[in-house]
């Protein structure tokens, strides 16, 4: 068990390092360096920087050193919580991001929760009542969920909300709470706004999970232990819920590790369409303006939060799967 946890932890750490390298590459990719961009930015607003000033800035940020040292310098600052300054906003990156990162996670977790609550019962029903009308409907809906990209779904919902209900579907807060300080009523306001974007995000994932659950459960239902359970004289519903469903839950739970990054990804693009104050719109702005410290930080933090989410799902799996817990193998 300790070995399993150790392996998962080291993999998570490895992933974080890989993400940080990719982030660094993204930051470094645009032509010119940070100082060039800073000078150009300053020049646009009428300021000037002398050649010596530029040189000393380059030295200060280590831009005159080899790339790997630059990476080391950057990552050591990041570890201390210093993500640099946003060029666009002229404020520390952490300040610009503010609540947005947490709101991204709130939306993604809500979507994850919804994915489960939708996919689990429908998947079970589809498998137990294979080839019933309900199964066909679920399969059909599942395919539609797979085929409609979530930003498209968001667009369609927006259009219908606007056209037929006359309301603007979108945002995470009502107007009066958008700038308000945090309080219980603001949290409640948030809670009222989260379900829609979460549902938009959850649809495709649910479609996928329903298929996984259905396929796994169909496999499990054919296994002899189900007959053993029936032969004990247990009521059918309990036979199914306690044995095959429980066994089919494991691959289902481990697939969360893939669903969660996907949801975080989706939240970026859905946020843009629905105007959610998550990191999505900010990331796009930052990328378009080549505000690379801001963009890089967002990519890095999203990546790390995903890794943490995945790690949690791995540990959850270990907790529910006795064989994994006891032998470290599944």
């Amino acid at each position, binding site marked *: 068990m300790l070995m399993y946890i150790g392996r998962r932890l080291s993999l998570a750490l490895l992933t974080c390092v890989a993400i940080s390298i990719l982030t660094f590459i993204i930051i470094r990719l645009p032509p010119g360096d940070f100082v060039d961009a800073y000078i150009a930015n300053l020049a646009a607003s009428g300021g000037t920087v002398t050649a010596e000033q530029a040189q000393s800035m380059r030295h200060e940020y280590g831009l005159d050193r080899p790339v790997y040292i630059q990476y080391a310098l950057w990552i050591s600052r990041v570890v201390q919580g210093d993500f640099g300054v946003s060029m666009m906003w002229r404020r520390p990156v952490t300040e610009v991001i503010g609540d947005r990162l947490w709101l991204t996670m709130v939306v993604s977790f809500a979507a994850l929760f919804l994915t489960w609550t939708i996919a689990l019962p429908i998947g079970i029903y589809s498998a137990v009542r294979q080839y019933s009308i309900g199964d066909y409907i679920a399969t059909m809906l599942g395919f539609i969920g797979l085929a409609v990209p979530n930003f498209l779904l968001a667009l369609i919902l927006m259009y219908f909300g606007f056209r037929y209900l006359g309301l603007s579907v979108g945002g995470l807060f009502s107007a009066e709470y958008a700038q308000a300080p945090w309080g219980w009523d603001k949290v409640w306001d948030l809670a009222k706004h989260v379900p829609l974007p979460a549902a938009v995000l959850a649809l495709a994932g649910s479609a996928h999970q329903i298929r996984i659950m259905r396929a796994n459960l169909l496999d499990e239902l054919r296994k002899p*232990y189900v007959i053993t359970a029936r032969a*004990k*004289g247990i009521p059918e519903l309990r036979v199914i819920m*306690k044995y095959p469903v429980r*066994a089919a839950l494991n691959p289902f739970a481990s697939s969360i590790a893939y669903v969660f990054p996907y949801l975080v990804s989706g939240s970026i693009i859905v946020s843009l369409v629905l105007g959610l104050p998550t990191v999505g719109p900010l990331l796009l702005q930052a990328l378009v303006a080549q505000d690379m410290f801001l963009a890089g930080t967002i990519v890095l933090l999203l990546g790390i939060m995903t890794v943490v989410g995945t790690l949690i799902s791995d540990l959850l799996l270990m907790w529910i799967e006795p064989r994994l817990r*006891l032998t470290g193998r599944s």
Partner: protein
Amino acid sequence: MVDPMNHPIVSVRDLAVEFRQHTGTVRALEAVSLDLHPGRVLGIVGESGCGKSVTARAMLRILDRNGSIVAGKVTLDPGTSHEQDLTALAPEGSEIRSVRGGRIGLIFQEPMAALSMQYTVGNQLMEAIRVHRDPGKEKARERAIALLNEVGIPRPETRVDAYPFQLSGGLRQRVGIALALAAEPDVLIADEPTTALDVTTQAQILALLRRLQRDKQIALMLITHDMGVIAQMADDVAVMYLGRVIEFAPVRELFRAPRHPYTKALLRSVPDLDAKPRQRLATIGGAVPQPGARPSGCPFHPRCPDAMPGRCDTKAPAPVAPGAAGAACFLVEDAAA
């Protein structure tokens, strides 16, 4: 002592089962009649696919979704005031459920696959105990430990909290037996209980089954394809071929004087210690036909060395009458006439 032959605890009469498949319906059982008696072991023998397991499942009404009983009766306690036709009970009702486990216990072939890997041995045992007569959690646990002890599992008080994947194959099968005994049924159906085990373990498990069956005066239906197991365990034997019982006889009689050509062939194909060196093992010519392509007439006639053209391939011989030794074969009918 009453003559057990006259008082079966379960009697199966003319049981027929069909499975729906893409290609059409397939008859898996045809006019199967059997009697199980308290304290006696009925061996059911035949090649794989002959309907042995289907018979067991049909009796408990746990056929797969596409299978259904189309004719016949399975009567529990026939001739008593509380006799019950199991085929007439509601498919998922409480009556049939109280029979499953409560009156008829089932032991499976694959001890690995027949136990859930998600729950401890104790959990699965206690469930089987509590579903019929719930003595409360504490008592159920004590009973589970006692059961494990009874089936010969060492250190039962720690093993009760083990998961099946932590046990060896032999121990798992003992757990399987304990599971079947949990609610103290008076009938046990053991479906190839030793096939998946190595030879030493096989012998131990058979000895255990024999002991339990004798001690508790259980009616045991032992399904196997192994003539050796039959010789060692059974009191009476039913030989099945392609969904039919083609011969029934007390075990000694069957081995001494088999009636049906198929039984004779089966017995010839058993390795013999007294055989001469390099003597070839006898085989039965041909293969078991596909279930969909059932031969007309006597199902065995395409492989039968003594088949009578024009007779065996047109008409099926009368099924074996329950309770009395006999075979479903025209040769036997002719000899008797």
